[in-house]
């Protein structure tokens, strides 16, 4: 398992010590209670190896265990905590919850391991570090082209494009191909202090659905605060028409994300990998 994690997170080894420490601090500020221990422990290993090339002196666990029982695990400490974590204290659960969270809501929640890293790495990339270049080893070499009926010409999709124009977001960032059989909903616009979010969703007769959302942030810092939930599958970097999308799965849906400056585009839902890539290929293409 440790060897698997080393391979899975090997790209992190290319970040500077300072950036790894910033990732740890950013994770420490995450109040969601999600378990990011895998990546945290990997980062710690990397940091420890870098400190003079040696691991720091390990703690004398025998001594510590003895102190724990003598000084801390006493009747006087019953019901007390030296460093209370208050409402943030996680309650251990016997089984992980298997809840179906609306994907839109999921995008607003600070997330699991690689999702948090993605948000932070966007910032690192913007500051000149070639973080995503390091991920290029995962780029797929399979390209898919196809044609299909779509809702591109529908009234709701045109409304979506109009909203983007009103907010000075170029149509070059928008798909010109969508899988057949899906019907578009009215676009949904949400504004906050940090961003404007323009979203459109599609549903088919089988109740499958997917969404496209473009967020325009007021600043790069706000974009860096965005994060996504992701389960335990590798991120795939997919390059098309000058944009690099990062494709990963989120529980039982697929998500692709692209960002540049203060723009963030997300496509997610019940989409096959082929359809996701065809959608991406239609963005910015002729």
């Amino acid at each position, binding site marked *: 398992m440790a060897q698997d994690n080393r391979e899975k997170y090997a790209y992190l080894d290319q970040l500077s010590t300072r950036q790894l*420490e910033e990732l740890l601090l950013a994770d*420490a500020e995450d109040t969601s209670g999600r*378990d990011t221990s895998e990546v945290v422990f990997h980062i*710690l290993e990397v*940091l420890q190896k870098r400190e003079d090339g040696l691991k720091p002196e390990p703690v004398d*666990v025998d001594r510590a265990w003895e102190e*724990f029982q003598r000084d801390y695990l006493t009747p006087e*400490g019953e019901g007390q905590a030296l*460093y209370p974590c208050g409402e943030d*204290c996680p309650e251990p659960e016997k089984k992980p919850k298997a809840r179906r969270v609306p994907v839109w809501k999921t995008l607003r929640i600070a997330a699991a391991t690689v999702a948090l890293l993605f948000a932070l790495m966007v910032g690192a990339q913007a500051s000149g570090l070639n973080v995503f270049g390091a991920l290029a080893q995962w780029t797929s070499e399979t390209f898919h082209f196809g044609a299909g009926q779509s809702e591109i010409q529908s009234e709701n999709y045109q409304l979506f494009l109009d909203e983007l124009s009103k907010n000075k977001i170029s149509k070059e960032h928008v798909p010109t191909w969508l899988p057949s059989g899906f019907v578009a909903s009215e676009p949904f616009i949400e504004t906050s202090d940090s961003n404007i979010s323009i979203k459109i969703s599609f549903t088919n007769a089988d109740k499958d659905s997917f969404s496209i959302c473009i967020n325009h942030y007021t600043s790069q810092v706000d974009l860096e605060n965005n994060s996504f939930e992701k389960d335990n599958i590798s991120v795939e970097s997919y390059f098309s028409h000058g944009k690099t999308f990062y494709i990963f799965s989120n529980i039982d849906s697929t998500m692709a994300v692209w960002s540049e400056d203060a723009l963030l585009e997300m496509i997610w839902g019940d989409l096959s990998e082929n359809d996701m890539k065809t959608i991406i290929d239609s963005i910015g293409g002729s």
Partner: protein
Amino acid sequence: MLPEEQKFLEQLYREAFDRIVHYIASLLKSKGFPSEQISGLAEEIAQDTFHTASKKVSVLMEHPNPQGWLMVTAKNKFRQYKRRIEESSRWFLPSNDFLENLPDPSHNPASVLDDMGYTDAMDRIRQNLSAEDFQLFRMVLLDHASHKAAAQELGITVWASQKRLGRIRNKLQKLLSQ
């Protein structure tokens, strides 16, 4: 604690204590805590994490990732500790007058603390606490020592240190907000 719970806790402790200590130490170091205090503080936050775990051991035994739970708990304790230190340091924040009228660079640096009101605040604290309480306050809140270090200095238990500091903080919050 049942024997099997005790055994589980000890095994978990031996597997994870070192990792949790180094995790917290890394966070403390990144936040600029004094290097001489980091190992003691990190160990104590880790000890407290396992102390919290000891109250939930029966559930932890069936948890899919007890080390992950420990890490999240330790992280939350670190975050709360950092908040507490930041809250305490606000007692010494300079007044608005000071911020709006920054001293002339030729001003005697030693008197800047007087101008900030820091010296006054410390004088008031010293006057309103016993010598022992002031020592505890200074060690834990200003010098960022662990409760264990303070307890050893004062000849009390860590829990007595924790309770006493709680009373001190409440007292000072009222005093310095006047």
